[in-house]
């Protein structure tokens, strides 16, 4: 791809927005040439990002919005998920793999996004809430996926966005 493409969507704070966001980003990923496995990883990451925004950021309050943005650059697909909450620090998120957290019923979303995407970060957003920024490298020009981060490589440190 020689040019950059950008998509902005404002979502309602409701469960259906999670499915909508996933579907939209899957279509973009498919059109960008990602294979089935990478489309799955991207779709799952978008789900988890919007779930985070819906539940933790916006506290499921219907008057709040979730802002989804997707950028396709010549080398990657970049996804932003912004909520209208109070923001959070990545370092404050408990490690779901720690023994004491293994049987927690929540808290795995961030971990899954970090595992599935090539780059992942959380920054203060323009709304005052948290902005998740994550990206995946586009398939290389020869048709081979450029991502070596398979599902078992979850101990690799995340790249900074």
């Amino acid at each position, binding site marked *: 791809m020689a040019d950059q493409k950008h998509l902005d969507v404002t979502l309602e704070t409701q*469960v*259906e927005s*999670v*499915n909508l966001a996933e*579907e939209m980003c899957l279509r973009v990923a498919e059109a960008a040439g990602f294979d089935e496995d990478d489309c*799955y990883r991207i779709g*799952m990451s978008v*789900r*988890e990002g919007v*779930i985070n925004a*819906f539940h933790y950021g916006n506290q499921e309050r219907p008057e709040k919005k979730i802002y989804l943005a997707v950028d396709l650059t010549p080398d990657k697909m970049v996804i932003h998920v912004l909520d209208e909450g109070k923001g959070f620090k990545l370092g404050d998120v408990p490690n*779901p*793999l720690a023994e004491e957290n*293994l*049987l*927690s*019923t*929540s808290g*795995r*979303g961030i*971990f*899954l996004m970090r*595992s599935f995407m090539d780059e992942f970060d959380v920054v203060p957003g323009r709304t005052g809430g948290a902005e998740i920024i994550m990206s995946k490298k586009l398939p290389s020009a020869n048709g081979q996926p450029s991502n070596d981060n398979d*599902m*078992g490589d*979850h101990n690799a440190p995340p790249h900074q966005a």
Partner: protein
Amino acid sequence: MALLQATYRDAGAVTVLDLSGRITLGEGSALLRSTIRELLADQRVRILVNLGDINYIDSSGIGELVSAFTAVKNRGGELKLLHLTKKVRDLLQITKLYTVFDVHSDEVTALRSFDKTTV
């Protein structure tokens, strides 16, 4: 998107809960939660969850499986998993839950593994 469907059947002293579709935030995870609650209310504490037709699960779905596991265990029972698809197995492995659950690929073997002394 396919919603979750849940049916259950008796296999001796074990209840096999057959799930199909997606266990995700919203109706899917809510149905799993209510079904487990219904089974426990009916004193069914040996539960084999058949995930052979589950093509997708997100963190909410994983959370409901964990919640179900704990709820059954707290009742003195056992909850085990059967026929994990590759995606579900991979998710449970990377979240280190694969070793928490007793996972089986064969129903007969799974049914035999339940402790018959479990109350």
